[in-house]
């Protein structure tokens, strides 16, 4: 008789959306809890402190999930501690695996980010221009500390070893359900793999020309999502709306496509792709009819890096190295 699988969830620099996706399993999660013992899931579910995690014996957690990227010194510390305490570590969701939305902050300097967040944004009232500091002496006697904002973002695997990767922003609840089943049955691929169906978004998309019987043609006119209303049935790429479906894992079931929105690649790269954005460029350019279309694309989408690396900025080796150098140069 096997014991329950000791499970931990750690929220690093994310929004907890991935954890909500797990909670969305509702009854299925309750059933799974017969086999899972939650030893750490703060602050969403269990009231266990970081200190308790630090006190656990090494390798005592069977399965640990991390959602969110490494953004500050607290994320860095807790992820390292969790790695030490766990046998299997899963990077869960787009931030943990690829960097996620917040990683686009690496395209700016720290000063730009702070000024936007604490000074210039519309809803901010900060006449003295005070920035948060890692240490603050209150009333001359209370030494208060908050985590230090790191120079650049990192994915989990850029900091510690990771056994499995799960993409999605957040991972689709139905896929999370399948995943929990696979984990409990011990039906897992070799370490270092993505846990995925392995199919592209196009494969599960109802608009795929291969299913609807349309002829695939080179794209002549490039459109943004704000340009008119896309046809509900036709492939978005064929209509000129830049969609990343062909290079993105389709574990989401094509959720965005179902509501007329082009894919932006949160599911992570399909197997064999090292640099998501570069492969997007390759795929999009090859579908364009001529160089006018390419020129129109560059003109219409005003920041290529923020477009093709929407969810995967930090995971690109080049971007990560540029970000590391950026603060030294600034």
């Amino acid at each position, binding site marked *: 008789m096997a014991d329950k699988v000791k499970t931990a969830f750690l929220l690093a620099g994310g929004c907890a959306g991935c954890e909500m996706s797990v909670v969305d399993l509702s009854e299925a999660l309750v059933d799974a809890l017969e086999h899972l013992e939650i030893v750490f899931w703060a602050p969403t579910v269990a009231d266990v402190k970081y200190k308790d995690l630090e006190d656990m014996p090494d390798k005592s957690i069977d399965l640990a999930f991390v959602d969110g990227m490494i953004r500050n010194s607290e994320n860095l510390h807790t992820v390292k501690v969790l790695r030490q305490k766990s046998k299997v570590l899963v990077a869960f969701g787009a931030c943990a695996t690829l960097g996620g939305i917040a990683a686009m902050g690496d*395209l700016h300097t720290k000063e730009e980010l702070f000024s936007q967040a604490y000074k210039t944004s519309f809803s901010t009232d900060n006449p003295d221009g005070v920035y948060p500091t890692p240490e603050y002496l209150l009333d001359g006697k209370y030494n208060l500390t908050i985590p230090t904002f790191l120079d650049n973002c990192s994915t989990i695997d850029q900091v510690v070893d990771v056994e499995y990767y799960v993409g999605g922003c957040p991972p689709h609840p139905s896929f999370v359900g399948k995943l929990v089943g696979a984990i409990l049955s011990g039906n897992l691929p070799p370490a270092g793999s993505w846990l995925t169906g392995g199919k592209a978004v196009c494969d599960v998309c109802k608009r795929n020309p291969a299913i609807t019987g349309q002829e695939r043609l080179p794209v002549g006119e490039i459109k943004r999502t704000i340009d008119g209303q896309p046809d509900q049935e036709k492939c978005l790429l064929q209509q000129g709306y830049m969609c990343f479906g062909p290079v993105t894992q389709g574990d989401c079931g094509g959720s965005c496509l179902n509501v007329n929105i082009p894919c932006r690649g949160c599911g992570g790269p399909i197997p064999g*792709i*090292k*640099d998501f*954005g*570069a*492969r997007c*460029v*390759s795929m*999009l*350019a*090859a579908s*364009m009819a*001529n*160089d006018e*279309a*390419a*020129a129109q*694309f*560059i003109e219409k989408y005003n*920041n*290529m*890096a*923020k477009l*093709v*690396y929407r969810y995967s900025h930090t995971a*690109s*080796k*080049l*971007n*990560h*190295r*540029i970000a590391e*150098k*950026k603060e030294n*140069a600034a």
Partner: protein
Amino acid sequence: MSFTPNIVGFACQWCTYAGADLAGNLRAKYPPSIKLIKVPCSGRVEPEYIMEAFANGADGVLVGGCHFGDCHYKTGNYKTANRMKILSQLLEDSGFERNRFRLEWISGAEGYRFAEVVEEFTKELQEMGPNPLKGGNGHGR
């Protein structure tokens, strides 16, 4: 001391690679800064390879293919042209110098042109200095 840049060159086997061969046969002189990688077609060069080369410290990357209309596979170089145009913009938006990347059409008959391109590109890179993403003097040392 001026530094010798480290250029990674992707050359299509039908045109630019043949052009490089001809440059040798013609005894054309050009700096020993380029490391050529033979590919079946310039359309085979994934932007990923170029990003990888830069991330690993290459000072420059040259992609060479056939002139328009000459592609052995008919449309390979048209696709390359589109890809590389967008890639250059991506490099710039990512905060990397786009001039470190160069796309050239060099046919199998243009041995001197190949030598000229490498010489020009080497000079340009010498002015720009080493790739900021690596330390050292451009020799990987």
